[in-house]
C-alpha cells in the first residue's frame, strides 16, 4: 500500500515538474542558454518544407495578383483540439518589388526578463515557414478583397499598420477586443479592421472588433486554466477566472467574412466544413 502511495506521489511530482518546472526555475534555463553557445544546426528537412510552402504561397498569390494576404503556418499536432485549421502563427504577406517576393510582417514574442514582449518582425517566406512546428507541408492563405488589400498595402507604406502594434505586452491568449495586450493574430485582425473602416486609431479599431467579430472561445477546465497561467507566453492576470477565453485564432479569422478566398496548401486532417 505504501509503495503504491509513493508511486502516486512520484508520478504527480514528475508531471508537475515537467508542466510547471521551467517557469519556476528560470535561472536554470538562462544558464543552459548561456552555456549553449554553439550555432544552431540547419534542419535540412524543415528547409525543404519551407521552400515548398514558399513556392506554393508565391504561386497562389501571383495567379490572383494579390499584393497582401494573411498567411498562417502550422502548429503542433495537439493544436487541432482548439483550432481545426491546424494553424498557429500568422503574418501579413506584403509584396515587396525590391525583394520580388512577399515579405511576411508579423508580431512575435521576444521574451525579456521572463516577460513576454510583442515585437513587429518581418521575414522572408522561407524564414517564416522554417519556424513552423513539425514537417507537415500545409499552410493557410486568407485573401481579402482588392480594395482591402490596397488599403492594407498603403497602411504598410505609411507605417499606419505598425502603429496598430499599440503595446509591447504580448499574450498568446490576449482578449480579442482588449487593450491590455497583443499577439500575432490579433494584430492582423486589427490591421484588416482598420483598413476596412479606414480608421487606424487602436482604440477605435478595438471597438469595431468588439462590435463585429466573433472570437474563438476556448473552454478551459480548472487544471487547464491554472496550467495555462503558468505558461511563459501567457499573461496570467488576463486569463478570466470563469468562462471561456475569448481570443483571435487562425480558425476565427478563417470563419470570419473578412476574406474572399481561403486556401490550404494541403487539406487539413480535420477539414473545415467549407473550403473556398
Amino acid at each position, binding site marked *: *500500500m505504501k509503495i503504491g*502511495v509513493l*508511486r*502516486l506521489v512520484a508520478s*504527480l511530482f514528475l*508531471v508537475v515538474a515537467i508542466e510547471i518546472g521551467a517557469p519556476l526555475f528560470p535561472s536554470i534555463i538562462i544558464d543552459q542558454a548561456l552555456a549553449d553557445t554553439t550555432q*544552431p544546426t*540547419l*534542419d535540412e528537412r524543415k*528547409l525543404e518544407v519551407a*521552400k515548398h510552402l*514558399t513556392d506554393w504561397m508565391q504561386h497562389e498569390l*501571383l495567379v490572383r495578383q494579390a499584393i497582401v494576404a494573411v498567411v498562417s*503556418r*502550422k*502548429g*503542433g499536432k*495537439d493544436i487541432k*483540439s482548439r483550432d481545426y485549421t491546424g494553424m*498557429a*502563427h500568422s503574418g501579413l504577406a506584403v*509584396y*515587396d*518589388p*525590391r*525583394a*520580388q*517576393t512577399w*515579405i511576411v510582417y508579423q508580431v*512575435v*514574442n*521576444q521574451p525579456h526578463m521572463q516577460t513576454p514582449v510583442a515585437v*513587429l*518582425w*518581418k*521575414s*522572408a*517566406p*522561407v*524564414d517564416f515557414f522554417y*519556424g513552423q*512546428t513539425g514537417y507537415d507541408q500545409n499552410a493557410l492563405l486568407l485573401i481579402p478583397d482588392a480594395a482591402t488589400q*490596397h488599403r492594407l*498595402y498603403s497602411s*504598410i*507604406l505609411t*507605417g499606419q499598420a*505598425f*502603429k496598430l*502594434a499599440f503595446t509591447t505586452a504580448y499574450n*498568446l*491568449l490576449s482578449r480579442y477586443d482588449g487593450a491590455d495586450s497583443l499577439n500575432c493574430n490579433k494584430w492582423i485582425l486589427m490591421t484588416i479592421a482598420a483598413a476596412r473602416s479606414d480608421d487606424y486609431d487602436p482604440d477605435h479599431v478595438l471597438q469595431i472588433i468588439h462590435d463585429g467579430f466573433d472570437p474563438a472561445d*476556448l473552454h478551459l477546465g480548472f*487544471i*487547464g486554466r491554472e*496550467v*495555462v497561467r503558468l505558461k*511563459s*507566453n*501567457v499573461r496570467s492576470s488576463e486569463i478570466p477566472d470563469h468562462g471561456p477565453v475569448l481570443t483571435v485564432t487562425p480558425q476565427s479569422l478563417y470563419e470570419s467574412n473578412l476574406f474572399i478566398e481561403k486556401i490550404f496548401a494541403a487539406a487539413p486532417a480535420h477539414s473545415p466544413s467549407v473550403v473556398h
Partner: protein
Amino acid sequence: MKNILSASLVLACFAAQPSFAANDSDVASELSATPILAGLAVSECICELSTHAVGSAGRRMVKLVDASGNSIGELTSAVLDVKGERLDQSYAPRVTVDKKEIPLVVRRDYVEMSQPVQQK
C-alpha cells in the same frame, strides 16, 4: 494496483490539458542563425540592392543587401517611386495602389531575411 491506476488517471488528466506554449511557434524563425548563409557569396545586381547567394543543392538562398551591406529597409512610398522608374518588366502583371504601378515579379531563388521592423 488501484494506486497505479489513480496515478495513470492523474497523468492522463494532465496530458489532456492544452499545451499552449509547446507548439504555438510564435517566435521568430531561427533560420537566420543557422550556417546556411555563411558560405561563399556570389553577387548579382537587382536595382539598388544586391543579392548574395549561397551555393546549395537546388535553388539558391539569397540575402538582399545594399551597398553598405545593410539588409532590406522598410517598404515605403519612396521605395515604390524609385522602383517605378527603374524596373523594366513590361511582361509582368501590374497592380496599382495609390496611383503607383507595382509590377508583380516572383524570383526563382529564395530570399533569406528575418529582422525587426524599423518603426518610424
